């Protein structure tokens, strides 16, 4: 692996995005619109908005990066460019790290915009540190990216890749504690919730937003999410085969 190739890949992915203004608009504007929508859905119930908004703040980058990455990787496979790259001296890590870096940059912009909008015009009250919340959101964006990289190997078409969103993201969303407290779920569901990375991200977001101190529970949640990133990156590297059938 070389830094130069990783940077070149990140630059290339971002350049591809730049040539596609509609995707950029979708990545940046849609989360802001949804956040605004949420604010007015809970117009009379500001406490609920204050409770749900931090969770959405980490869910947006996760979901968007998951979809964008898995489709981008699938296109790389079906266009033959992946095969071409794998016949060059490049290391697989160069490609994966490049993708992760590029989408982290996109996530920083996305998270920054939504955050400014939420705590500014929308009047979101955050009791904890904004920095902690931003960190969690960025880690979550990275998690979405590496999960998308890994799962794209199991899709043969863009139709299938998009279907992974309801198949892999919605169950995590249902079980992450947003709709019902994780501790009150049926044992099997609460166990499932315990092994899903998104649950820790959502817990971390809630903790970061409600406590002004960086607690040890927050550290644990952040570490779990952070540890999932190299795990899925490694699994993703395993799906990049130089020889195919």
């Amino acid at each position, binding site marked *: 692996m070389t830094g130069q*190739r990783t940077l070149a890949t990140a630059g290339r992915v971002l350049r591809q995005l730049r040539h596609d203004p509609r995707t950029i608009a979708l990545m940046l504007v849609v989360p802001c619109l949804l956040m605004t929508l949420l604010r007015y859905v809970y117009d009379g119930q500001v406490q609920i908005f204050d409770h749900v908004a931090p969770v959405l703040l980490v869910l947006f980058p996760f979901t968007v990066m998951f979809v964008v990455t898995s489709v981008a990787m699938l296109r790389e496979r079906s*266009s033959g*460019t992946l095969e*071409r*790259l*794998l*016949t*060059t001296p490049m290391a697989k890590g160069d490609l994966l790290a490049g993708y992760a870096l590029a989408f982290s940059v996109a996530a920083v912009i996305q998270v920054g915009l939504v955050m400014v909008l939420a705590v500014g015009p929308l009047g979101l009250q955050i009791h904890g540190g904004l920095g902690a919340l931003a960190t969690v959101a960025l880690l979550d964006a990275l998690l979405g990216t590496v999960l998308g990289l890994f799962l794209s190997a199991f899709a043969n078409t863009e139709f299938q890749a998009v279907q992974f969103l309801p198949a892999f993201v919605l169950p995590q969303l249902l079980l992450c504690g947003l709709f019902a407290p994780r501790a009150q779920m049926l044992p099997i569901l609460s166990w499932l919730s315990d092994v899903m990375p998104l649950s820790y991200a959502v817990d971390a977001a809630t903790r970061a937003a409600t406590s002004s101190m960086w607690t040890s529970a927050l550290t644990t949640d952040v570490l779990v999410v952070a540890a999932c990133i190299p795990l899925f990156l490694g699994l993703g590297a395993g799906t990049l085969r130089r020889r195919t*059938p």
Partner: protein
Amino acid sequence: MNAIEVSHLRVVRGGRVVLPDLSCTVSSGTIAGLLGPSGSGKTTLIRAIVGVQRVASGHLSVLGKPAGSPELRRLVGYVTQTPSVYGDLTVRENLAYFATMAGVASSAVADVIETVSLGALSSTQVAQLSGGERARVSLAAALLPSPKLLVLDEPTVGLDPVLRQELWDLFHQLAGKGVTFLISSHVMDEADRCQRLLLLREGAVLADATPAELLQRTQSADLEAAFLRLIEAEVSI
């Protein structure tokens, strides 16, 4: 010395035996043509030689190393049948990226753009190019690292006669410097420009000869007739 040596290669794709037991060689510095009907296994053989095809058994040696060895990644250029470049990037952006990934100085980019006559289009997005132009971007990317062996899967499809002539002149010029070529083609008049021809049918080598030998052995006036006679098994060599 042989640039490519294939012995008893067997490849199964999707449960079907595509290459049952194929052996052939290509000697260094020659331009070898790979011909055969659609579905005869040309792309599969090419993929095995560049080391991206999973093979069931057999031995493949490329430039003296087993096919797919990491050392070969700097020495073998591969152009896929469908152009494998990024449609949403410009010609220059594509080549600059592939240059970095291949470990080549970025100064090589301008050279290969000139080589494939795309100078006027270097700032155009690849998705907006014609099929033949896109194919040349893909070829340019393979030329970047100045490979010792170039494996080209139908590189001249969709090109007009003038461009095709230019590319063949380039291939001959590079072959003169010791580069080996394996070029698959459907166009019979291109077979004439190869020094050696491999004819595949149903995954087996039907003929391995020079164009002149083929004409003589099949008693045909041109290569098209020679191939038709061979494929229809009127004669065998």
